[in-house]
């Protein structure tokens, strides 16, 4: 894991003092709420329905036990004893007092954490593959590049007042666990025909009210040109992205309006100039960062045998444990989606427990996933049963990774000032309705957004739900056929919307249709793609 040096620490500490001063000026009336808003937003502080919400960055979703315990501490001391892990691998606290926010940032800084650029029209927290450094299918670990991007994008003088927010994801494997094609920029490390490793660059993906799957604008970017090429991509966007309409200001609209080829041409032209300026960090700096992510000292000679005699453990093992690149090790995903629970929520005690398990069993590492779960990346197979027992005793052993119960949901109208409908109660009902049948249904990614901004990724769900306000009544539209993975696609609306119970019934009819039509080994998404919308529509509305 990356360790701050004196420079990194000085920058984060300075930010705490800057924010403390900004809050002081606001509380003293020296600046208006309008002037304060962009300043607090740049620190991840939103004014929500009931209180301030603070979003803390977890860079590329990686953290250690000490940092995790700090998240529990903040939940206990400054919130109501829990936190909410988000689809961008961050954590949010929903009950924050403005005058305490600087103290929270100061406490976070003691463990090399911050809330820098977790909101605002700037480059947001860089996201990545939660299995980075552990995945069996990885070309290279993407996290050193994500850290390089974190540093480059922090207080970037030119790109802090972009037309709109800007999200970058980096992966190093063929399987896409980070939804790179639905980001403003998605970067995928891959090997070219000459055997060199570089980046495939996707630009202009996104969700929101105009969802787009990002096109490739460069198939192979040499590593040495990484930052200067990013500068060129961002400069073209900063200069020509639309600023006349907030709903058309994301880079996906620019790329769509001028076309991917024209955007790519403009970037190449800008890059030809920018790369003469010496903006790229030297190879020595990349190597310094990469050394922090060197593979940990995995034990050798470990057994791959696992005792499956406890049937409940075996179910969890088959569902929530993934292949690791080192023999004798496995990757554990802790589901934060217990039946009837709030997706992504964890109590302070649960966060502490996960920290303890990471320290004892996972080489002091944890990851947060964009599906709002937590990963223990390096667990010896011999320890899996002990880990499961500890999780089970704390309500953290839901064996439902990637099943219909593993729901992504935004906070919705229970918390969010933008929402039109509640997401959480609906997620709870769906999770209860399908608790008994979810294993038979297999991989089925269900995603709920409480408004058109799509924070719950409904466009990319195998089943997606969009909450809207229809004449003062919450109404839910149903979508089928989306995917955020390497086979990225956008879901289609089935037809007229439903009330809360009606949409749960409609989902049941959709999955019954799948069950009657599926062939051996077909996922819900595969069946939908093979047979099309018609039979589902017939069953739902017939």
């Amino acid at each position, binding site marked *: 894991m990356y360790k701050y040096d004196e420079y990194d620490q000085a920058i984060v500490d300075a930010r705490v003092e*800057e924010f403390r001063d900004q809050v002081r000026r606001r509380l003293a009336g020296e600046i208006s709420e309008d002037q304060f808003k962009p300043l607090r937003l740049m620190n991840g502080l939103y004014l929500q329905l009931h209180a301030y919400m603070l979003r803390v960055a977890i860079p590329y979703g990686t953290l250690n036990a000490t940092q995790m315990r700090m998240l529990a501490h903040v939940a206990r001391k400054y919130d109501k004893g829990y936190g909410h892990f988000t689809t961008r691998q961050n954590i949010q606290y929903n009950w924050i007092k403005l005058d305490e926010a600087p103290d929270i940032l100061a406490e976070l800084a003691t463990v090399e954490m911050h809330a820098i650029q977790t909101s605002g029209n700037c480059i947001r927290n860089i996201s990545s593959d939660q299995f980075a450094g552990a995945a069996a299918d990885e070309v290279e670990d993407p996290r050193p590049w994500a850290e390089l991007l974190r540093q480059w994008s922090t*207080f970037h003088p*030119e790109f802090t*007042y972009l037309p709109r927010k800007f999200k970058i994801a980096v992966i190093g494997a063929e399987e896409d666990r980070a939804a790179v094609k639905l980001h403003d920029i998605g970067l995928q490390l891959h090997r070219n025909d000459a055997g060199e490793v570089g980046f495939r660059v996707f630009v202009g993906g996104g969700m929101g009210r105009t969802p787009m799957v990002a096109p490739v604008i460069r198939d192979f970017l040499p590593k040495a040109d990484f930052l200067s090429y990013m500068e060129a991509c961002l*400069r073209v966007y900063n200069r020509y992205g639309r600023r006349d309409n907030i709903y058309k200001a994301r880079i996906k609209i620019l790329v769509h309006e001028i076309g991917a080829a024209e955007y790519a041409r403009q970037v190449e032209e800008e890059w030809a100039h920018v790369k003469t300026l010496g903006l790229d960090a030297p190879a020595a700096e990349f190597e*310094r960062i990469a050394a922090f992510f060197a593979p940990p000292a995995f034990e050798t000679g470990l057994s791959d045998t696992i005792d499956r005699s406890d049937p409940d453990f075996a179910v969890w093992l088959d569902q929530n444990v993934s292949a690791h690149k080192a023999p004798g090790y496995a990757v554990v995903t802790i589901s934060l989606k217990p039946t009837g629970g709030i997706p992504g929520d964890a109590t302070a005690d649960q966060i502490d427990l996960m920290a303890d398990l990471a320290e004892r069993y996972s080489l002091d590492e944890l990851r947060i996933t964009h599906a709002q779960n937590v990963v223990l990346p390096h667990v010896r197979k011999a320890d899996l049963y002990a880990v499961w027992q500890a999780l089970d005793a704390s309500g953290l052993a839901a064996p439902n990774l990637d099943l219909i119960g593993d729901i992504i949901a935004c906070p919705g109208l229970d918390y969010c000032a933008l929402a039109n409908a509640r997401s959480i109660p609906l997620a709870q009902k769906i999770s209860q309705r399908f608790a008994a049948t979810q294993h038979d249904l297999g991989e089925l990614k269900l995603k709920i957004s409480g408004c058109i901004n799509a924070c719950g990724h409904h466009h990319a769900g195998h089943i997606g739900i969009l909450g809207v306000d229809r004449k003062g009544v919450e109404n839910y539209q149903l979508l089928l056929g989306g995917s955020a993975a390497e086979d990225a696609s956008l879901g289609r609306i089935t037809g007229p919307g439903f009330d809360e119970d009606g949409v749960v019934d409609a989902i049941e009819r959709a999955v019954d249709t799948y069950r009657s039509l599926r062939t051996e080994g077909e996922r819900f998404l595969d069946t939908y793609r093979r047979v099309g919308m018609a039979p589902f529509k017939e069953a739902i509305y017939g």
Partner: protein
Amino acid sequence: MADPDQSDIGGEPKLRFRNDEPHEEPAVTLDSFLGQSNATAVRLESDEDARALLPHIDRLALVEVAFPKFRDGRGYSAGRILREAGYTGELRAQGDVLVDQIPLMLRCGFDSFAPEASVDAKTLAEALSRYTAVYQKAADARRPVWALRHG
């Protein structure tokens, strides 16, 4: 960072980080500038292309870049583009320029400021001295952290 000269010029509060004499000639619009051969000061609106000025950099003494709203960040790119092309004259940010933005603008090559609202001198001084390290190379002389690490 040197203390800026806060003297009033033409009724507008200005913050200058240059030692030369303020330029006297009023800035003209980009269209007027391109249409006359002897103008030395130009104002660039936020939707105008700074690169249109590049053939004329040698005769320019003042470029004023408009920031109609603090959220409109196009001017940051305009400033850098001019400096990257070798422009050494005065580069002024005018408009809805907030104190917390001035350090970023300085990094993009701006060296004079005409904010619409007054800027508190103490707050500005603190903002300018707060960050002792920066992560990127930009249009100012500051060395990024990666250069210091591998000095």
